[in-house]
């Protein structure tokens, strides 16, 4: 009887579903279909985009003033600015804006649009205003710093004689100085918001694609910008679907329903590598994982303690197991591939419990101690924290792991309310200045400091005047070899004294369907204009 009922149930399910069945799918040859978790995508306004997913995606819609060399991202290449000159004293940058460019509305691109966009960024004072302020371009001085010479010429006169190779990196991020269609945006201005609300869901830039449709947490459709200046773009359309679940993304990729899965679970890499319908490649990114002590807590002030914890990670064991194809060990604060980085062979630390125990005793804790470590709740941080917890236990340190979502964890960091902390960080451009500004520069370590963006400040670490001065000196050093030498020295000094422990450098995993024959990935994101399909 029961067998009969089971058979009936199976037949009923089949009767319900079989009529719907179809052959295996294939995406159109001129359309690139992406599955991604788009939860973070909350605005398309370049002045407000605050996270790497949307920024990487929108680089396919908004070209930056200056681009990266496609073969060597530590070098610059023309972008919206086709050329530039720098005065001998490094105080005047003259940029020639590419002629003949037009926005999707048909309006021509001019130097005035770029100057307006920069001023708009500072006036709105949203997430990316600080990306200009960190170059000392403020709301008060922007009119004198950024000058329109004529329709195709922009002059920038910074307040400091920045190293030319460094200062120009500022403009490689489309969020800093985008070419925005001011006429179109001002037509859609509401209550003096400089078009912020309208641009949250529209694009008004020059790039290989333009936003045709965006329904938050549902779908984004990009249409090709015919006549794109850089190259002939093969894909007519890019469709990005919101698929929050990594397992579902993998299945869709294997079925051929999508061409690219953005969030494959690292545990699936090995299986996917064996699938002939999928190509997987790995490229380094500007994302790192790190842990830090809070030096505002008097228990955590000894450099010996920080050094001890550097010996509690099995960097290379983790790299080849848990983090295989996800991250690579990076024991310097400056990631590989970034100007100023120490060579990849720089690996001074390895798991050494005896040494760690001795250093902890020398730091004043012969019997160990107990502490809480606040950890971001996404892979790989809880696993890394457990690894640390297990090793710390062996040297007498009892760690309690508390997992938190980003909005909760970052709030704790900004408020300096943590004991130990573990999370990730994404840098903006491949120059060591960006890393040291965020992780080491901290001239005011007081609780009232305005520089709460500094991870060094969050850790309560005062690196001292010589460290801060060296960072500032590197910023104006015109000789690249000397600048490299300063950064190399700073990386070693950082490891000797900092409560911030760099752990791993994230790899960008690119899982694409077998029909995709060309797809370029860079340190800052995926280049959809490079895609070719069979």
């Amino acid at each position, binding site marked *: *009887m*029961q067998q009969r*009922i089971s058979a009936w149930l199976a037949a009923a399910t089949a009767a*319900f*579903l*079989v009529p*719907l*069945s*179809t052959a295996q*799918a294939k*995406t*159109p040859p001129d359309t690139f*279909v992406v*599955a991604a978790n788009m*939860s973070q995508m*909350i*605005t398309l306004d370049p002045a*407000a985009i*605050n*996270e790497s997913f949307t920024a990487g995606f929108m680089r396919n819609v908004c070209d930056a003033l200056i681009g990266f060399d496609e073969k060597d991202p530590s070098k610059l290449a023309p972008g919206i600015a086709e050329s530039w000159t720098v005065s001998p004293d490094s105080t005047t940058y003259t940029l020639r804006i590419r002629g003949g460019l037009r926005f999707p509305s048909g309006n021509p691109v001019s130097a005035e649009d770029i100057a307006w966009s920069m001023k708009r960024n500072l006036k709105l*004072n*949203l*997430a990316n*205003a*600080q990306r200009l302020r960190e170059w000392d371009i403020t709301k008060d001085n922007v009119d004198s710093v950024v000058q329109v010479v004529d329709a195709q010429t922009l002059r920038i006169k910074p307040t400091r004689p920045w190293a030319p190779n460094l200062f120009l990196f500022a403009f490689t991020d489309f969020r800093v100085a985008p070419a925005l269609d001011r006429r179109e945006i001002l037509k859609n201005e509401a209550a003096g918001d400089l078009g912020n609300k309208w641009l*949250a*869901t529209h694009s008004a830039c020059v790039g290989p694609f333009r936003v045709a449709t965006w329904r*938050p*947490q549902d*779908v984004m*459709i990009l249409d090709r910008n015919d006549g794109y200046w850089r190259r002939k773009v093969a894909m007519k359309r890019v*469709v990005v*679907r*919101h*698929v*929050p*679940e990594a*397992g*579902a*993304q993998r*299945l*869709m990729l*294997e*079925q051929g*329903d*999508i061409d690219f899965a953005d969030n494959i679970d690292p545990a699936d890499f090995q299986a996917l590598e064996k699938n002939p319908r999928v190509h997987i490649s790995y490229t380094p990114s500007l994302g790192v994982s790190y842990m830090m002590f809070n030096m505002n807590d008097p228990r955590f002030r000894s450099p010996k303690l920080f050094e001890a914890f550097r010996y509690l990670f099995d960097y290379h064991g983790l790299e080849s197991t848990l983090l295989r194809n996800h991250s690579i060990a990076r024991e310097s604060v400056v990631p590989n591939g970034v100007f100023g980085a120490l060579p990849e062979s720089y690996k001074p630390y390895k798991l050494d419990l005896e040494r760690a125990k001795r250093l902890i005793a020398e730091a004043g804790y012969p019997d160990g101690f107990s502490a809480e470590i606040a950890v971001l709740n996404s892979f790989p941080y809880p696993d890394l924290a457990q690894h640390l917890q297990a090793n710390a236990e062996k040297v007498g340190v009892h760690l309690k792991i508390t997992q*938190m*979502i*980003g*909005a*909760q964890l*970052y*709030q*704790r960091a*900004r408020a300096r309310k943590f004991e130990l902390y573990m999370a990730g960080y994404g840098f903006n451009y491949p120059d060591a200045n960006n890393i040291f500004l*965020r992780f080491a520069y901290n001239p005011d370590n007081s609780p009232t400091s*305005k*520089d*709460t*963006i500094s991870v060094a400040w969050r850790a309560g670490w005062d690196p001292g005047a010589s460290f801060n001065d060296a960072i500032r000196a590197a910023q104006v050093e015109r000789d690249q070899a000397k600048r490299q030498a300063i950064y190399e020295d700073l990386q070693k000094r950082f490891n000797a004294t900092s409560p911030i422990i760099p752990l791993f450098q994230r790899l960008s995993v690119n899982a694409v369907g077998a029909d995709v024959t060309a797809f370029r990935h860079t340190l800052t994101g995926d280049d959809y204009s490079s895609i070719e399909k069979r």
Partner: protein
Amino acid sequence: MTLAGLAALTFFIGRVMPVDPVIAIVGEQADQETYRAVRAQLGLDRPLPVQFAYYVRDIATGNFGTAIATGHPVIEDIRRVFPATLELATLALLTGVLLGVPLGIAAAVWRGRGPDHAVRLFGLVGYSVPHFWLGLIALVVFYARLHWIGGSGRVSVANVDLVPSVTGMILVDSALDRNWDVFRDALRHIAMPALILATTSMAYLSRMTRSFMLEQLGQEYVTTARIKGLSGFGVTWHAFRNIAVPLVTVVVLAYGGLLDGAVLTETVFGWPGFGQYLTSGLLAGDMNVVLTCTLLVGVIFLALNLLSDVLYRTLDPRTR
């Protein structure tokens, strides 16, 4: 009164949650100047009672605020995402009723025998197995292996935006547009999430139906009917008609549960519905979204309770 209490409770719980909505807007890397400016724009620098007073004033005028995640008014967003969940939940409820009620009747009729054990086991499994796991297994088997169903989302990429949105429910809109390719594609995509979402209501309805039927089948009028020679089917039908009233209440309440309980199913199947919208709002600390969605869920339950009362009175003359 209920809604006012719900609004106050959700508001104050939301404000003490250790999630910072400002971080969601400005990101981890914004400096203090920007952070403070946005905090002030959101009104979060005001005392809590003042924030609540402004909130009450705004919702009284129909202003539920703007969602951080979309930049749109929350009400507009809900208008966009709610039909997707309504469609899914309605299909799940229909499936639940069409399968759950007959199973419950069968279990009662064959009490203590094979069908009863099977239905009770099914009920246990339906309650216990997480939708998240069931959804992934279903995707592997029916989507990846057998190709019986569509994958993530409401339609295939080729069919996105092909039919004009009239009701927001893709099955209805494609039928209105007489675009049967899209209708068939939408059916392929909704079938499995609806079936999985229906497992809980099927389990619940089969158990409740069994319980109601057992009570009726033990009544004297049933014994009398049997003695008089009424067929087995006739007796069952007779008893079933008498459980219609409590069953309607159960079905209506199950519908409410489906409408606000589709979160995990929507996540697995990339279904852009109300559950996903609420979860994203919650994780971003977006209190405009959380408060409005909570109020809406409250309104739905109140409306369904009212509907259940009306149906009760309609179906049972003794209560009029």
